[in-house]
């Protein structure tokens, strides 16, 4: 299956909608163990991407993703804004030269996205961060693609993995960012950034599963 420019546009438009829909939800989660700005930053950053994506004249999907990442970094230079931007930029660099993505390239997109996030934030799975929903999804997708599953099915499974990963953050203690000061007190609370990670996968899933 080939993911083309039109699909990418739809994915980012969908992501814009998702983040706006979840604005208050993210704010509440971040207010509990952070500074409460996550709903604002994610809705602002991703609606901006949704509004510009169709107007960017760029055939190279790698360069397109890099530009979207740069834009996100400029619009919302918060922790999550910068991490998501770093993921997009890393993936964009890795996939430079492609005008469409096959299944392996989609798996590489997520793999590099997660690496970008981990490099930028120096975090790892289990730290109660966005990585805990992104990483399992990316690993699941990688495996499904290796097994030759249909991308629609693979992304569905990846999404489920992100949901489980998000759920797993509830019992973790924060070690990064503003939540780190709460440490043990953060146990029992779902990680706000991991919630964004799950929503991010959801955007891809919603579009790709319906192709």
């Amino acid at each position, binding site marked *: 299956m080939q993911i083309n420019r039109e699909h990418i546009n739809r994915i980012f438009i969908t992501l814009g909608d998702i983040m706006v829909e979840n604005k208050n939800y993210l704010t509440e989660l971040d207010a509990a163990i952070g500074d409460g700005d996550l709903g604002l930053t994610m809705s602002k950053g991703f609606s901006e991407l949704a509004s510009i994506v169709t107007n960017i004249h760029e055939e190279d999907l790698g360069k397109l993703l890099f530009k979207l990442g*740069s834009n996100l970094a400029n619009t919302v*230079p918060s*922790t999550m804004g*910068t991490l998501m931007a770093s993921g997009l930029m890393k993936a964009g660099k890795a996939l430079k030269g492609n005008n469409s993505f096959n299944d392996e390239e989609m798996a590489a997109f997520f793999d590099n996205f997660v690496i970008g996030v981990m490099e930028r934030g120096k975090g790892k799975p289990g730290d109660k961060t966005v990585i805990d929903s992104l990483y399992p999804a990316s690993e699941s997708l990688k495996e499904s693609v290796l097994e030759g599953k249909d991308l629609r099915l693979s992304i569905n499974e990846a999404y489920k993995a992100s949901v489980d990963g998000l759920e797993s953050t509830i019992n973790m203690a924060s070690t990064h*960012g503003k939540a780190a*000061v709460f440490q043990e007190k953060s146990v029992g609370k779902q990680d706000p950034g991991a919630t964004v990670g799950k929503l991010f996968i959801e955007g891809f899933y919603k579009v790709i599963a319906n192709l």
Partner: protein
Amino acid sequence: MKRILNKPENYADETLKGIYKAHSDMVTYVNDDLRCYVKKDIKPGRVGIATGGGSGHLPVFLGYVGEGMIDGCSVGGVFQSPSANQMFEVTKAINAGAGVLYIYGNYTGDIMNFDMAAEMADMESDIRVESVVGADDVASAKKGEEHKRRGVAGIFYMFKIAGAAADEMMDLDNVKRVAEKVGANVRTMGVALSPCIIPEIGKANFTVEDGMMELGMGIHGEPGIDKGPLKTANEIVEIMLDNILGDNPLKAGDEVSVLVNSLGGTPKEELYIMYNKVEETLTNLGIKVVKTYLGEFATSMEMVGASLTILKLDEETKRLLLKPAHTPFFSQK
């Protein structure tokens, strides 16, 4: 909210406009972006020093851009990191051929953006960038976990001393070495008696009741180590000194600089009442205060409270500390 402002969402930018109007002889901005704040007069061949961080802490961060101190500052929204791109624009503007040192507070958002900016500077402009983070708040993580500590008022000493080192035309490695030495020898502890309000939010997102205090609270309201009834100035100073000297012991004969900083709402009178006790205690320990600073050095808008910073000096840092400096917000002869 007892604040003099227009639209809350314009707080940071209107502040900047006022600053550029008042100090147009010394500072300006680049890339048509008010938030890319730079010194007008960049000395060729000198190591450039950049900082950056959220608004709402004046004179931190931009207030230390000027003669004998630092060269540029990217400015974020209230308590928000500026973007990597803004940092990169500042970096390009202040690079005078000898590379750029980033000195900023140890906060996740800022770290990631400065790292990204450093990559851009390397990849796109071949500018060598090194970074040192300020992490002086002893109350924010225990000994052995110094890398987790928040950066607070002690960053002033990094700006001052690294700035003087750059003025002596030290190279980037040495300016960085000096900044790191300051970092290793500076400790701060604060106390908050009231919250502050982010204008766009309009209400405090934490509280400190009248007659209460929170020891070790961060400058964004991060939880401290002890919440309880307000103690006397002398008791507060004793606790602060216990924590600071417990973490970085001093012995008779050591020389230090002391900074008593208002978080914004605490008047100067009270800083001097605190200093009266600080000096007495240090003198009793045989420690010599070489240079004292009192006033607003790192604030959280109208937050009531104060912090105490002690920097242990050696010959090099002492010499550099005592050099003149002159910015719109700080002046030393």
